[in-house]
């Protein structure tokens, strides 16, 4: 498969050789949905400990970009590597890599037939082969950390959206991931529940977790991001620090986008 050789070739050619602390590297990634070219020549490097917020209008490809990083979406060409290893094809290797990449979904996707505690224990026991007691202790402490310790024995459907999303974050954290991908984590939440989730994410960012966050929450981007990536029509249009981006966007597309969301 082509992408396998991508990294070493790039290294050999000497252009953009991944530095030691580059955790996620996408180079020249392209993807089509039928005739729609959703990702166009995407180059993006995420350093260890970095919080990258991806924003942009609907349909700009930002969720797709997020999902390609753990291969929930396949790519047509280009290369993606995580911690120096190219993303493997479907199989055992890919499963192992996914265990190191946490994912938080827009619609929470907690396992509906399992309790909150079981949701947080499952990956530890079945993938990490942790023993049950240790997994349970860790699950309890993570649930405590995200503020839903009292809900451990309930089923996901009995929790509010905000609580479910915090459990989903705990479930991702239980795997000790190298990076966590957040795919519009607050977009399905009632307004009053958005903050409780953002606070947990902000705390994670402060603790040094590497995060890729696709979101419409500009406040979070401003306060927690090291870097803002602005996407439109399948391309990365602009990359800047939050300050630069929000106070002085360079591209017209970004200016237009910001003027629509910030003035009302």
């Amino acid at each position, binding site marked *: 498969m082509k992408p396998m050789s991508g990294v070493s070739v790039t290294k050999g050619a000497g252009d953009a050789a991944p530095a030691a602390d580059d955790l996620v590297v996408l180079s020249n990634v392209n993807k089509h949905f039928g005739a729609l070219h959703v990702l166009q020549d995407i180059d993006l490097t995420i350093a260890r400990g970095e919080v990258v917020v991806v924003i942009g209008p609907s349909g700009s490809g930002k969720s797709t970009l997020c999902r390609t990083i*753990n291969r*929930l979406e396949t790519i047509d060409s280009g290369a993606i590597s995580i911690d120096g290893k190219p993303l493997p094809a*479907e199989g*055992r290797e890919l*499963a*192992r*890599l*996914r*265990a*190191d*990449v*946490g*994912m938080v*979904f827009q*619609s929470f*996707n*907690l*396992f*509906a*037939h399992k309790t909150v505690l079981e949701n947080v224990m*499952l*990956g530890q026991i*079945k*993938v990490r082969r942790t023993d049950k007691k240790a997994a349970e202790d860790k699950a309890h402490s993570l649930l405590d950390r995200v503020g839903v310790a009292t809900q451990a024995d309930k*089923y996901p*459907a*009995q929790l509010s959206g905000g609580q479910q999303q915090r459990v*989903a974050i705990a*479930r991702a954290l239980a*795997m000790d991931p190298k990076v966590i991908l957040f795919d519009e984590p607050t977009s399905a939440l009632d307004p009053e529940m958005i903050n409780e989730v953002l606070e947990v994410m902000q705390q994670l960012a402060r603790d040094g977790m590497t995060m890729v966050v696709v979101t419409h929450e500009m406040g979070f981007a401003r306060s927690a991001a090291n870097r803002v990536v602005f996407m439109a029509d399948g391309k990365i249009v602009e990359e800047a620090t939050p300050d630069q981006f929000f106070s002085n966007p360079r591209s017209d597309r970004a200016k237009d986008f910001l003027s629509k969301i910030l003035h009302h």
Partner: protein
Amino acid sequence: MFDFLEGYDLLGAFWVTVQLAVYSALGSLIWGTLLAGMKVSPVPLMRGFATAYVNVVRNIPLTVIIVFSSLGLNQTLTISLGADVIEDINFRLAVLALVAYTAAFVCEALRSGINTVPVGQAEAARALGLSFTQVLRLIILPQAFRAVVNPLSNVLIALTKNTTIASAIGVVEASYLMKDMIEAEAQLILIALVFAFGFVVLTLPTGLILGWVSKKVAVKR
């Protein structure tokens, strides 16, 4: 009024019916689950096999399958499934045929159950690093089964009644005894009623209990 029942082993015959139903139910549940797993697997060969199997088997009358298992498997290929008495051989052949047939329906019921599980459940499971079989076994199938308890109970009831076809290859279950009695006794309507009642006694609780179970285990979303 029920003197005509004397000298017949009614309970024994129904016990054979129950045994046929229970063994076939277990077998078809396992084989049907495997087929459903194949049907959603990423391997095209497995998907093709499961699809072909279901489409062929569910369109052949059960009588043909059961008679084939006796004439084809046993008498032509001399497969006896580890039994040496003819009664046991026929019983096992009948179970094999019932499993082969019913599994196609179990598979289809389960597959419709799999369709009720939101795709996000599998994505979240894959994102945790679970393998395909783990995702199926731990996340998809448990939720799919809970969604199809009622359809599966229909399959089970149909299976219980289908066991009567085992009489075609000489398994002495309830309907076999009924034919015997019809030939020897005069109370035709009463005989029919007795056997009809016997089957209702077997299947009615099945439907009621599984209906209750269905509500009990339903996954709330």
